[in-house]
């Protein structure tokens, strides 16, 4: 009888009723994706779009470079910002191996690297119909990969080098030296294939000059990264960019940071943002007080967090217009009614007891009337003045302070053009002076206890110049390390650890060590 039933069942059940293929409607199954040449931009896009969360996004590389440094601070306010002490940890260099901000940058950078590898693999396999310019496209993607490694060599140092998308095994770790060599080799190999064009076609993409800028910054920091100076290599690379004559300093400092800053002649490489299509630039949201919404009739309610360290504000020359071009200070009036909404004061009592309007806010990136949760301002990674200053620093360190002073003066001119043009000029001798930063621990009443000052910092004046020119551009941690300040000085509520651990590298994320047995923790965190 059982057989009969079975036969009956098999007879009744239509053969098609055992088909279990997935029917996919609102996703694209890779197996059915057959791209044409018109799809290439969409396919290579993931190698770039990761930059947006990675830089000006929530706790991206901008914050990772600024929070541990001496220009910006995120104190605890009445409306929050304690967040399990995460900003205090960053300020005090207390980060454990599972601190999430460094891990954020690791995840973003490797997402860029893995996507670049994935796309290179697809092109090489012929899965993407690249009819012409195949080598050039691969070179661009390799440059993207080298760029991500140039971030990782700075933040995590000893990271795995992965180049083959098919290899799914847990990769082994490379030394900082190996990573350095890899970046240099990749960039030099790709360089001849990269576009020399500077136009909207190459805007936000890796052209030859961006590759040179990556290399220049790598050489500038070579002493930190591999213990070998590369001043001449840096100068030569900077000169290549000067000689291209593709870029120039903008007349106005502000032009670099306006909402439509993609037109700046100074920008070499920027991460494009847009308030509608790419809305992750939230630097203004983190810095503005909540009530600032009423000043600009904003279409979003800012979060009211970070602000300037008062000691840094005190370093500015009174005539330096970069101060007002970088910070939002004092009374703020409604753009529609003219009524006083709030007043930002310079003073920030401490990491713990800070009121809503304490501390100057980042105003460098234009926040237009009616601004939204995301700024359209593009985040600049390399600009021409950066190249000028890199070369100047190398000259200074090579003993050519006079030549360096000429370049620094060139950069300073627009900052004093409307106030006191004579002050723009600096001399080589000045650059050899120390820093005017009043290092020391800030008490609640604003006084500095145990004043350390900055006179002892070699080339301190040049270091100050970097601060004024690039404040709130995500440079400061790198500069502090290169000038030996990072692990030595006290500022605001930060005191040096003096425990033999410099913490100039962040820890390899504990999560990744847990998942990949080939990874060894960086020495300061073992």
């Amino acid at each position, binding site marked *: 009888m059982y057989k009969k039933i079975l036969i009956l069942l098999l007879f009744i059940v239509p053969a098609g009723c055992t088909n279990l293929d997935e029917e996919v409607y609102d996703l694209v199954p890779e197996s059915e994706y057959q791209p044409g040449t018109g799809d290439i931009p969409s396919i290579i896009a993931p190698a770039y779009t990761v930059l947006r969360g990675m830089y000006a996004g929530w706790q991206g590389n901008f914050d990772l470079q600024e929070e541990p440094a001496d220009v910006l601070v995120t104190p605890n306010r009445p409306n929050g910002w304690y967040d399990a002490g995460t900003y205090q940890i960053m300020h005090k260099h207390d980060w454990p191996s599972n601190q999430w901000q460094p891990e954020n940058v690791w995840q973003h950078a490797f997402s860029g690297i893995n996507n670049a590898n994935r796309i290179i693999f697809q092109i090489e396999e012929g899965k993407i119909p690249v009819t012409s310019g195949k080598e050039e496209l691969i070179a661009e993607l390799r440059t993207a990969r080298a760029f991500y490694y140039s971030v990782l060599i700075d933040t995590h140092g000893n990271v795995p080098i992965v180049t083959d998308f098919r290899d799914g095994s847990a990769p082994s770790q490379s030394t900082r030296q190996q990573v350095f060599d890899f970046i240099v080799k990749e960039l030099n190999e790709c360089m001849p294939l990269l576009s020399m064009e500077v136009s909207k076609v190459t805007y936000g993409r890796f052209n030859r000059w961006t590759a040179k800028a990556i290399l220049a910054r790598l050489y500038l920091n070579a002493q930190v990264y591999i213990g070998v100076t590369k001043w001449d290599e840096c100068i030569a690379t900077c000169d290549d960019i000067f000689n291209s004559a593709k870029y120039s300093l903008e007349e106005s400092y502000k032009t670099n940071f306006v909402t439509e800053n993609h037109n700046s002649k100074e920008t070499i490489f920027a991460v494009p943002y847009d308030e*509608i299509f790419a809305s992750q630039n939230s630097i203004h949201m983190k810095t503005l007080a909540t009530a600032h919404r009423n000043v600009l009739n904003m279409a979003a309610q800012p*979060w009211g967090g970070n602000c300037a360290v008062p000691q840094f504000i005190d370093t500015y020359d009174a005539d330096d217009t970069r101060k007002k071009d970088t910070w939002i200070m004092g009374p703020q009036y409604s753009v529609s009614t003219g009524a006083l909404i709030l007043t930002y004061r310079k003073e920030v009592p401490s990491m713990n007891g800070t009121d809503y309007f304490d501390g100057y806010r980042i105003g460098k990136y234009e926040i237009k009337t009616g601004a939204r949760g995301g700024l359209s301002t593009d985040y600049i990674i390399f600009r021409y003045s950066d190249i000028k200053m890199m070369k100047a620093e190398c000259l200074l360190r090579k003993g050519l302070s006079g030549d360096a002073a000429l370049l620094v003066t060139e950069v300073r001119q627009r900052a004093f053009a409307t106030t006191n043009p004579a002050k723009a000029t600096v001399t080589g001798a000045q650059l050899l002076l120390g820093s005017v930063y009043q290092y020391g621990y800030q008490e609640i009443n604003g006084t500095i206890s145990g004043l350390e000052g900055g006179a002892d910092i070699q080339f301190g004046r040049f270091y100050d110049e970097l601060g004024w020119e690039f404040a709130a551009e995500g440079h400061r941690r790198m500069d502090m390390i290169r000038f030996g300040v990072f692990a030595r000085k006290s500022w605001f509520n930060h005191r040096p650890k003096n425990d033999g651990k410099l913490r100039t590298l962040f820890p390899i994320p504990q999560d990744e060590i847990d998942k990949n047995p080939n990874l060894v923790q960086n020495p300061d965190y073992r």
Partner: protein
Amino acid sequence: MINTATVVKVMCILWLCLTCHVSQAAIHLAPITVSGTITDKTTGDPVPGATVRIKGTSAGVTTNETGYYKIEVPGSESILVISITGYATQEIAVGTQTTINVALTTQASDLDEVVVIGYGTQRKGDVTSAVASVKADNFVKGFAKDAGQLIQGKVAGLAVTTPSGDPNANTQISLRGNSTLMASTSPLVLIDGIPGSLNTVSPEDIESIDVLKDGSAAAIYGTRGTNGVVLITTRKKGNRPATLSYDGYVSIQTIARKMEFLDAADYRRLLAEGFFVPTANEKWDYGTSTNWLDEITRTPVSHTHNLTLQGGTAQTNYVASVNVRQWEGLFNRSENKQLIGRIDVNHSMLDNKLKFNVNVIGRNRKFFAAPNYAYIYRQALIRNPTDSVYTYDGKWDEDPNGFNYDNPVRPIEEVDGESRATELRFNGNIIYSPIKDFNIKLLLSGAKTSELTGYYETFDNRASIVNNRKGYGSRGAGHFQDNLLELTADYSKNFGRSKFTILGGYGYQDVTREGFSAWNSDFPTELYTYNRLQSGDAVSNPFATTGMRGVSSYKNNYKLIGFFGRLNYAWEDKYLLMATIRHEGSSKFGVNYKWGTFSAFSAGWRISQEAFLKGSNVVNDLKIRAGYGITGTAPNDPYMSIIVLNYNTDSRFLYNGTWIQPVEPNRNSNPDLRWEKKEEINVGIDFSLFNSRLSGSLDVYQRDTKDMLYDFPVPVPPNLFGSTLANAGRMRNRGVEVLLNYEIIRSRDISLSSNITYMNNKNTLMSISNDLYKTSNDFFFAGHTGEPIQVTTHRVKVGEPIGNFYGYKSVDIDADGNWIIEGKDGKPKPIDDAVPDDRKVLGNGIARHTAGWNLAFRYKQFSLNLNMRGAFGYQILNFQRMYYENPTIKQYNMLKTAFDKVYGKRELANPLAYVSHYIENGNHWKFDNITLGYNVDVSSSKYFKQARVYVSGLNLLVLTGYKGIDPEISRLGLDAGNDSRDKYPTTRTFTIGTNITF
């Protein structure tokens, strides 16, 4: 010898039969009319609805409400068979009698009850696996949200919790603890064999609920069976003559327990004492006194009405019901309005060879498309009680400096919205029985749910102001279609003392979900609300963000196909065996593992049928049984195994001046994805003693989950994403379940019965690795405190149970009011010096012991039911205390207890932190439901067949040391024991209701 004896026996029987027929044919007498009354032997009450049938024919009648019947029999040789559920069937030869009164004894054993076991039924006595059955008579009385609440505390091993006061929230059910790491631990719910949810049918329309607890019972449901199966059987068979019954009740709810926050007077006192220091931006006292919780809550009144019409003939009968609910929620404007209609029609023809059943359930649900009440509730708790709802000029009062600090009344009042859902379930089956005991059944079902929502925020809504938009409107529609085809055949046959039942079947399920929504803002008028979305200007504004306008749609599908078979074998009703197998495939699995096979085996020995116990006065029934079965779990979402690409609209790529959409993979794929399997061994005993006054069961189980589905952490690089859904890991659950029923008093006027359930479960994670996926750590973290503490709350570690709290153990407080914690070395240290290694296991959020105790008392027409339940041996992380019992956070209102001395020393001065101070014991005993009923005597009435009125109270008393609102919290998931700070105040419900049958 034996063979010869058997042959002789058979021949004798044959001869007897023949003689019978001959004699019957020979003595053909005139018909006789017999009448009489059927009563209950114990109580003497009449038994209405009993069937009086002439043996060997299908002719029969039913007793009326007074127990009276009248039947015409062919002659004096006729035998009457009197049967009704709950009583032992009796046979009486007519002889010369014309009046036959019969007193029925209540059924010797509830082991003769019919139990639903999936694709069929079984006598409870024949069941060899862990199955629990609750009939309508034993349901929890009074206000019931859904089917879950009917059996709360009634089934050992089934935890039913009502974690929310939200009128739209369902009860949460879980069986035998957590046996999977993935999110869903809910059992499969089938309504008359068709997948649904606990609220698919109204509780008043349910006849019985059966629960398949162990793997040997659930294996026939393959990949859906791991968390157990709840089989809901609706009222099926119509009565003759037709009856109409009405059930109705009205409930009110009051807040039973809430957390005590500072009031306006406390604020003024603390300001005077210098605790609050006024500044330019914060004056602390805003001059009014507002109880913010009162401003957003009310005393909700809810009513429910149910009408059921049953009737028909032997060939055709029907059940039709209408259920109306108008439920108000505790928070202003929250509601749930529902209309459920159901028609069930049965028809049999061709001498019962062909049977049809058609069942239609329609459900309309409507509720206020609510703002985010959890957020509103939090705002009410933390808001300054001296602040007012309105400013002097009648506007909403808001604080310009507050971030996530909003007037809680405003988002309730400044919105409009409605959500409607229509569920229509058609199902029908045809049973063809070509020969005796052979049935072929075809079941077809289509369940369709359509949802339509509309939501509008006015110009003066805070979100409109903050986001610079003039109003915001949205509409959304969703459609969900679940089609099922099942073809089964079963055959029963007795061979001598052996009895076989075999079942074979095929099932095909196809589920599609699709929907779309649209939203827009900047409307010219408030009058359209969400009804004319095109009038908003944002849609044509090229600079509008997706937050202001947009559209979205989705569609997905999965299929499940199964071939299954079951064999039941019984020898002399003494030795019982059951074997099942299911070969099942799911489209959700990887291409390499589309199909899987699930098998089960169970056996029972009915010792009471053995000669040495048969006829015992003490032991009425005794059975031991053991079972083994494999069940599975499929991933929650489809398409997890294949590589899929997505165009990303929100984070675009600037290509040659144009923002284009990147195309990118959105997860690591895993072509080896397959079902998670659970192997379960269950050993149990069923007993019925002392004239069935004491009955119950005891089950011991071990469930081993293997190939556990988990978002396995994988290294980046080389992977694109940090986790891959994979099968890795093992988990073990062991437990004991006890069910005890005791009829303490059983007499005509008075009865008292007690029902006790108990369960104990021990969970251990055995491994989270396999050959492919290895971790250097044998743990991961789960659960999160949320902002602003921002740490994980639980650790899931190999060798430990799920639900372990993991954090700093606070042991003291220092002179400055900061926590002293116990370091890794066991020595105290300041929390500022704490390192992650100092964290410890601080308790466990899953109850080790849960118990229920139900008492039913009847005195004449009065009945009193008491349901109690409790849970023991677990801890709760009290989020409300963790966030609001801290005097350093002055910006938000705090609990009065924030000023209590910690460790008897001083007030806390530490910033918010997750420490063991906030972890409390959750032990509790709840007097959950007390119902007092009165059966009105309707024996003299011409119209009423039955009438009952009752009053009931729900959640009346909780005995606990827990300081939070309610220790009965969600026990599901990896973060069990977290008592959210947004937890609604629990309510006490008082109900008055009636059941009337015409």
